[in-house]
Structure formats: C-alpha cells, structure tokens
C-alpha cells in the first residue's frame, strides 16, 4: 500500500515540524496538517464516517487553539529539559519500540483482521436495527451505552470549561450567603 506509507510519512514530517517549530502559530498549523493527513488516511482505509468527523473536529480544534494562542505573548522559550531526562526518554522509547515490535508480530497481519464479533454486526445490522450504516448501528444500537458515555464526556468537558472560566473562584467571606449563578 504505497499511498498509505506516503500519507504516513507526511503525517510524521508534519508532527516533527509541529513539535520543533518555534512559533506557536506555525506549529498549530502543522498539527492541522497532521490531522488532515489522518483524515486522508481514514478515507484510504475505508472509514468515511471517521474522515468526516476527523475533518470537522480538526477544524474546531484548530479554531480553539488559534484563539487560545493568538495575541498571547510568544515569549521565546529556549533550552529544552536536561540531558538526563532526554536520555531516559530515549531509553524508554527504545524499549517501547522493541517491545511493541515484538508484540506486533503476534497479532494478525495487516489487512487480515479477525472479526469474530464484527461479522455478527455486519450480518445483522440491517435486519436487526434497520440502519444501513453499520458504524452508526454499532454506536447507537449495539454499543449505544458507550455513546452515552461519550456524550457524557463531552458534557463533562463543557461543564469543566464553564466551571474553569468563572469570573471569580472563591467568594469573599462576607458575601457567603448570597445566591449565585
């Protein structure tokens, strides 16, 4: 699959650029490129649902990130963390790559997913739920409870942001009894 490797290389380069760029704005844009690469990747791997979602989420995330960074003083942040931490990180990543490669050999090869459970979904999605889109039938019927959790995660983060962005965190002691909202 040459196109997969091409896109993956593109993503990797984008990621490296995003991490190593000095200016925040350019690295935000680079991470956007990585996200678009992932979106293309989803298309190649036959996942149109994910491609759409990834695209729009990417846009939203970029808007939020840019709004957050723009205008904030980009004080140049030079020196990286110390050598010891870097070395231990290198060690860790070496071990991680070796272990992951060893473990990857044991799982089925690329392109040959086992699909013990998923065959059931594919066979029964239409006549049991009536939805043509199997992914939708999974997330909203077979595993709808997961989606409740997902909606709750989003709700929690909205509430969290609302709670974080209050004007004032604590009341003064003398105004304790006033109602708030």
């Amino acid at each position: 699959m040459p196109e997969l490797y091409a896109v993956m290389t593109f993503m990797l380069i984008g990621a490296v650029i995003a991490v190593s760029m000095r200016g925040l704005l350019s690295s935000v844009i680079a991470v956007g490129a990585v996200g678009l690469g992932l979106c293309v990747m989803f298309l190649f791997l036959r996942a149109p649902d994910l491609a759409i979602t990834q695209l729009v989420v990417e846009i939203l995330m970029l808007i939020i990130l840019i709004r957050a960074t723009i205008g904030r003083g980009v004080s140049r942040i030079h020196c990286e963390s110390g050598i010891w931490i870097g070395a231990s990180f290198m060690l860790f990543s070496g071990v991680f790559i070796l272990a992951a490669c060893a473990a990857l050999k044991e799982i089925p090869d690329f392109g040959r997913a086992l699909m013990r459970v998923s065959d059931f979904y594919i066979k029964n999605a239409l006549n049991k739920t009536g939805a043509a889109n199997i992914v939708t039938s999974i997330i909203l019927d077979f595993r709808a409870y997961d989606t409740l959790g997902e909606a709750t995660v989003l709700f929690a983060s909205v509430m969290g942001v609302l709670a974080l962005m209050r004007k004032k965190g604590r009341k003064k002691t003398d105004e304790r009894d006033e109602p708030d909202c």
Partner: protein
Amino acid sequence: MDIVLFLTGFYALLMKRNLIKKVIGFGIMEYAVNLFLILVGYRSSGEAPILDNKASDMLFVDPLPQALILTSIVIGLGVTALMVGLCIRIYQHYGTFDIAEIRRLRG
C-alpha cells in the same frame, strides 16, 4: 511508523516546556492511537461498512474499531478543550506559557 508518531507526541507532551506545545503533543499522540486502532481493523480489499440496496455479499472492513475511534475522537476533543481552558487560566495567572516559570508547586 505509527509507534514513532506516538512517540513524537509523547516526547512533546512530556519534554516540551511550552504548555501549548504540550497540548499539541497530546493531539499528535491521540492521532497515533486512532491510527493504530484503524489499522487494526483494516481488511484487504474490504469496502466501507455502509450497506446499500444492491449487493449483499461484499467484504467489509471491520466496523467496530471505527465506532471505537469515533468515541475516542470525541474524548480527545473534550480533553483538548479542557486543556486549552486550563492553559488560558494559567496564562492569566502567570503571563506565560513556559512551565519553567510556573513552578510554584514543588516537591
């Protein structure tokens, strides 16, 4: 290759001293995880898992990881939004995104 992408994000998340860079690193790490999950579910010459009226005997790719990724994208979005919120709050308190200057809590 996917592992390298993951490690890049991991590197940024742990090593970088800029808060926004950390958020970006988190984003990259999450892309890598999603990519890994979708690669797991691919089946050669499979079709996208959407039925239509005509043929019934097609070979589909695994739909279950796609459902999982959908959920994990949403979770990532939520976490990122909250992280950005925290970053803005930190910026308001300290006037910088540099964690070297934000070391009030130690030990």
